[in-house]
């Protein structure tokens, strides 16, 4: 047995309290196998990895046993552990951009890892660095070695990180969320590389992930963790085919899968019209290169693309936050939601109804207004009152020093003349609409979970009952089970309120569940758009096809078939 973890209990002491991060975790890993530790945030999977590396903070108390090739690691001498780290155990971390030191070159950092464990001349180190970078599939090893982290893409950096991890021929490779921060096409390349390396250099891989698609793609065996305990341990095929534990089933069910698309709503009046939009960030960087989009009332348009494709820039333009080089972004003055809204129809206060009836000023060109944000401040503010925005990270988009109720009430205070009592009633309605108990209004953001915070952010975005909602990756920062609930909520809110929505996401499966139509962005241009059914199930553009092929499916057998059929992606 290469790695054996037995009865591992890790607890942290904080302010006199002892909290257990893992309890009795046990698993074994053999040479040449990939074991996936799966769980949501707080499940103890990363803490377990850090315990194997001997890198837990001083406040942690560890009991149990961790043996590598028969050698006990718990309680081993610090010098011995240091020899093992980077020597027998290689590690790949989540965010490659943050995991490399920004002030040293890639070659320098990989070379340092080699020199720590091997006595080699500097020429030999340089040669080895070049070989390694070539091994992980980087085209121009010399250039990569000379580059600083900020000069490389996420995919290139993660390949370099893997090169560093395998630089001293480790017997164990720990990969902690190795693809979470990457685009799907880059992710597919990294997963292929890891699979290939496992066979070639005869190493075992401990894969830590929350992504069932990644598990299905790479793992041989799976250990499912929930709140620091192992709830299930099975070979990958059996786990997916017949999950034994309730939690495993929940996890698998929560994974958004392709299948059912939403039927398009009855054609409504146009509510947003973007025409030939061009956004330059500087004379050399063109973020958006001539994009035209239409969204009808009550329609959800999914805008998908990888990082740097320009999709978020479009969201920022609509919020009036980014100056536009040319083109128009017209927000029409239609107000599809009046008395049909459940929130207002159940409203016990008569004075509330006008809130929903008012329409944003008709036909405002936000792109034009945003060119002179100071001069047009008033008009911009009016236009913004017709647009709700939900951002990716609710932890940072909510003011930590305001109660939830205050945050939700803020748009009402700014844009509506309501009495304090009316505001309170409206906030109560909104909390109810996002399925939070009214008592939550008195809490502060840090007293809530990620999913609850995102519900609050949605409530705030809907406070003015806007005809158009912009959601920029609203579920990307959430665990899958939470994401599933937020998506369900979003869908029912959209059905009830009938707002139109520009839904920006990199996750095609999420977009499929929500969007009536999909537009695919690549390098600042829309390469394909049409109904969700058509774009995601019968893609015409090669880029869309490649994007779809790169997504790992949460089914080991199907994923293996897809992998075999996939055209090698260029990286």
């Amino acid at each position, binding site marked *: 047995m290469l790695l054996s973890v037995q009865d591992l209990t890790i607890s942290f002491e904080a302010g006199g309290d002892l909290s257990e991060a893992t309890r009795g975790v046990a698993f074994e890993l053999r040479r040449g196998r990939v074991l996936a530790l799966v769980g949501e945030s707080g499940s103890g999977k990363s803490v377990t990895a850090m315990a194997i590396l001997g890198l837990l903070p001083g406040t942690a108390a560890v009991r149990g046993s961790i043996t590598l090739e028969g050698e006990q690691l718990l309680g081993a001498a610090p010098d011995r552990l240091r020899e093992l780290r980077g020597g027998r155990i290689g590690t790949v971390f989540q965010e490659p951009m943050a995991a490399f*030191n920004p*002030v040293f070159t890639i070659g320098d950092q990989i070379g340092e890892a080699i020199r720590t464990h091997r006595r080699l001349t500097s020429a030999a180190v340089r040669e080895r660095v070049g070989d390694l970078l070539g091994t992980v599939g980087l085209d121009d090893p010399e250039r990569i070695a000379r580059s600083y982290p900020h000069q490389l893409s996420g995919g290139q950096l993660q390949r370099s990180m893997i090169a560093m991890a395998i630089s001293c021929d480790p017997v164990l490779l720990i990969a902690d969320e190795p693809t979470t921060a990457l685009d799907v096409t880059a992710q597919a390349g990294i997963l292929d590389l890891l699979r290939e390396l496992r066979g070639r250099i005869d190493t075992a891989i401990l894969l830590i992930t929350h992504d069932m698609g990644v598990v299905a793609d790479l793992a041989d065996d799976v250990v499912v963790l929930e709140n620091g305990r192992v709830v299930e341990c099975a070979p990958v095929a059996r786990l997916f085919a017949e999950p034994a534990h309730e939690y495993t089933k929940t996890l698998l069910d929560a994974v958004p899968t392709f299948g059912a698309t939403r039927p398009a709503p009855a054609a409504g009046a146009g509510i947003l019209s973007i025409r030939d939009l061009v956004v330059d960030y500087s004379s050399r960087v063109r973020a958006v290169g001539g994009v035209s989009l239409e969204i009808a009332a009550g329609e959800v348009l999914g805008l998908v693309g990888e990082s740097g494709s320009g999709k978020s820039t479009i969201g920022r333009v609509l919020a009036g936050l980014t100056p536009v080089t040319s083109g128009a972004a017209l927000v029409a003055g239609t107000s599809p939601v009046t008395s049909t809204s459940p929130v207002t129809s159940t409203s016990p206060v008569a004075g509330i109804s006008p809130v929903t009836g008012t329409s944003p000023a008709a036909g405002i060109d936000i792109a034009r207004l945003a060119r002179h944000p100071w001069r047009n401040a008033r008009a911009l503010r009016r236009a913004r009152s017709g647009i709700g925005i939900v951002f990716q990270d609710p932890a940072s988009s909510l003011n930590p020093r305001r109660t939830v109720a205050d945050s939700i009430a803020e748009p009402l205070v700014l844009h509506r003349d309501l009495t304090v009592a009316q505001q309170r009633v409206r906030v109560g309605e909104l909390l109810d609409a996002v399925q939070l108990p009214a008592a939550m209004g008195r809490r502060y953001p840090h007293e809530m979970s990620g999913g609850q915070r995102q519900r609050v952010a949605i409530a705030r975005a809907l406070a003015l009952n806007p005809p158009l909602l912009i959601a920029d990756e609203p579920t990307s920062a959430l665990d899958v089970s939470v994401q599933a609930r937020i998506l369900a909520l979003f869908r029912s809110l959209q059905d009830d309120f009938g707002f139109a929505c520009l839904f920006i996401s990199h996750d095609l499966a999420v977009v499929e569940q929500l969007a009536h139509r999909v537009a695919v962005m690549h390098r600042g241009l829309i390469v394909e758009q049409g109904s969700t059914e058509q774009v995601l199930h019968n893609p015409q553009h090669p880029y869309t096809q490649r994007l779809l092929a790169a997504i790992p499916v949460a089914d080991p057998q199907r994923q293996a078939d897809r992998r075999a059929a996939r055209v090698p992606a260029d990286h």
Partner: protein
Amino acid sequence: MTTLRFLGLRLLGMAGTLLVISVLTYAVFYLLPTDPAMLSCGKPCTPARLAEASAFMGYDKPWWAQYLDFLAGIVTGRHFGSGLAAVDCAAPCFGFSFRLNTPVTELILDRAPVTFSIAAGAAVLWLIIGVSAGVAAAVKRGTAVDRSAMLLSTVGVSAPSYLVGLLGILLFGFTLDMVPVGGYVPFTESPVDWLWHLVLPWTVLALLSAAIYARLTRGQMIEVLGEDYIRTARAKGLRERRVIGRHALRNVLIPVITVFGLDLGSLLGGAVITERVFSMQGLGALLIDAVNTVDLPVIVGVTLFSALLVIVANFAVDLVYSALDPRVSR
């Protein structure tokens, strides 16, 4: 952007900034109600003699014309008066002190070595002390080392330098008789005496300034130690000494150097209080004397020279910054 173009633009910008500062300084001081001619007119000051003195010094012209004369003098030098009483101010002429009967340039060059000696030595000391204390406090966070370092730095931040300086003189100069109580000996005259006279002012200045650097370094270090790349460095099997000394310190120094450059720049322009306490005749003392005697050309000259030093220090900081942080180099 090429490096050359970047440098050119920066130099132009620096020249522009200096020009603006010089106009402001000139305007402020020359629009003061004091008439410099009156001061050197002598007694009895008849209107005729006043006009004569005014014309001699060039104060009969409007202030902007005087300013242009001043600018031209930097390039070509200036002459005041004619005949036997004529004085010469060679280029670069930053004005002429009629009170001390010396060109301002000469006064500054004469005094600068004193201030530079104080500033450079103190700066090196405080950087070493401050950064070491900050790193030690951050690494031993929450321990007695951390708490005592931070307690000392609170004392250092709040203690007035003249008080600490005087106490230092009292203890080490008079009571223990280890170091001279004041004065300055040029390096060229006797390097040992130069060092001996400077030890106390260096230590006092360094200990007080190091306090701020210790706090800054500690905060930065604690933040950097939480970064992902530190975890990566540890996962590579590096020794803690190397993780701190190489991976963390380099990132910690980036903001520290920025503050350091500006502090050093302004100190080079005159360590006013320190020079006073240790009775050293540096730029700070020159400036104080000039203010006391309303010697306007000297005030303008020293002010401009200080501004130049700050701007140059700023430029040097930018160069060091881009050497330390590859992300900002172009």
